[in-house]
């Protein structure tokens, strides 16, 4: 009995078919085109409901774009859903959570504004679409947003600016940096002059002991706030891969040490040794030290850096608790919901393929 429990589940789960990505992408495309709004979520906080709707469109665009890069034959089918998602991402209604926090509309105050660090996520989505469709309808907005974010990042004294008033998060800055790099890649622009200095300054937010990224910091002093976290390190490892592969890989190496393997099922600890917590809106539930977000986001790093063993272990866990189901469009995870499915699509299809589509040669 014990031998069966140890061997059979790990043999049955974690085996992905080559067509899985496409089937999953079709299902997510259908989900986002049928509409996701703040009313789809009930976290108890209007800001978090808004962030989740925002996150669904963001991750759907990234995931769909990555599937198009790996399966160009799906372009005609998936691109309309990407366009619709980026359109939604830039709507005032979808960004209402940021508007409420700052008291102004982030996208309306690009040239003279500051903060609004969450816009880096929307910009990464726009960059992904731009890579596939350089003449996209939102090209002008994308250029303006990228310039505004680049200026704020260049002027940031400690490599980060605020996401919300008084709140700055290094993982959000990794998104900002990734979005700028992917924008420049899509247009064939050289690397920004401030980027090498930014990379060096940003490295201070990587905890030397655990190798994880601090989740929050004081933008004015650059002092980390709270412990380094698995979920932040995992999402930063993904987004920094667009801007600085070496730093991204370094974060993944730290994250790799957080891995837990139970009977072949992989999970990631949210906190490094010596720290503990029950989790928050970023980490999701933390049970026995294992974080849901860290586990899901770590799939991207494992895939990007060819860590097939960990990817398979993590994917087994996703299959066991996510419960994959076939549907009319393809397949989705029963317990994922719109946001969970969009995140899993983006993380399980992460690929360095984008770099082959950069306009500049040799990138």
């Amino acid at each position: 009995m014990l031998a069966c429990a140890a061997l059979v589940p790990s043999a049955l789960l974690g085996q992905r078919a080559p067509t899985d990505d496409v089937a999953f992408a079709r299902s997510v495309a259908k989900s986002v085109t049928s509409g996701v709004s703040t009313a789809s979520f009930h976290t108890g906080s209007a800001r978090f409901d808004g962030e989740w709707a925002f996150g669904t469109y963001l991750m759907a665009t990234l995931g769909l774009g990555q599937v198009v890069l790996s399966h160009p034959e799906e372009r005609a089918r998936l691109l309309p859903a990407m366009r619709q998602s980026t359109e939604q991402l830039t709507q005032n209604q979808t960004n209402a959570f940021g508007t409420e926090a700052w008291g102004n509309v982030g996208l309306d105050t690009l040239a003279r504004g500051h903060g609004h660090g969450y816009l880096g996520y929307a910009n990464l989505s726009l960059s992904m679409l731009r890579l596939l469709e350089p003449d996209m309808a939102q090209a002008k907005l994308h250029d303006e947003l990228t310039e505004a974010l680049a200026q704020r990042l260049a002027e940031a004294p400690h490599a980060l600016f605020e996401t919300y008033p008084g709140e700055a998060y290094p993982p959000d800055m990794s998104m900002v940096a990734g979005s700028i790099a992917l924008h420049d890649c899509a247009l064939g622009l050289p690397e920004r002059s401030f980027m090498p200095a930014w990379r060096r300054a940003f490295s201070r937010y990587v905890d030397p002991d655990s190798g994880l990224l601090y989740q929050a910091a004081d933008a004015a002093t650059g002092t980390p706030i709270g412990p380094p976290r698995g979920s932040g390190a995992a999402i930063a490892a993904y987004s920094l891969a667009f801007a600085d592969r070496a730093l991204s890989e370094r974060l993944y190496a730290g994250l790799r040490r957080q891995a837990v393997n139970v009977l072949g099922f992989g999970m990631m600890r949210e906190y490094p040794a010596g720290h503990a917590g029950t989790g928050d809106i970023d980490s999701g539930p933390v049970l026995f030290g294992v974080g849901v977000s860290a586990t899901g986001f770590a799939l991207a790093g494992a895939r990007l850096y060819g860590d097939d063993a960990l990817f398979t272990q993590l994917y087994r866990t996703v299959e066991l608790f996510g419960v994959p189901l076939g549907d009319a469009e393809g397949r989705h995870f029963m317990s994922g919901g719109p946001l969970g499915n969009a995140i899993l699509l983006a993380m399980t299809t992460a690929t360095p393929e984008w770099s082959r589509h950069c306009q500049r040669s040799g990138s």
Partner: protein
Amino acid sequence: MTHQKMFVWCLACVVIDQIGARLLDSIGLVEGLLAPNGARLLLLVPLSFVFYGARLASYFVVPGLLLVVAGAVVVANLRAWRDKCACRQCQRERSLQRTINRASKSPSSGSRKGLCRLAVKPNCAGSAITGSSE
């Protein structure tokens, strides 16, 4: 628990895993859990507990139990087959003995009688596997 009951329990776990996934998907597990609606939660929370219990059992317990049940069935059949063979052997020996006895008009040896007594079991007249009469 008898082997039949074990098998039925395993089957139930697998069926709940397969059908429960579709059911929870159609009634919107995630949306329901996120929505602060008491009545819906009252339905979804127990359903998801039963579903995930059955799913975990399907992967971690059912394979082992099925192996136990299958092993027990194989052992039972092997025993029945062994008994059946012993029974046939015994019948052949008896038949041979009777032939020898008739030919020699002499009493059979005690050792052969002993062998038959050992080999012939209560079910010797029928097979445990097929239930057919010998």
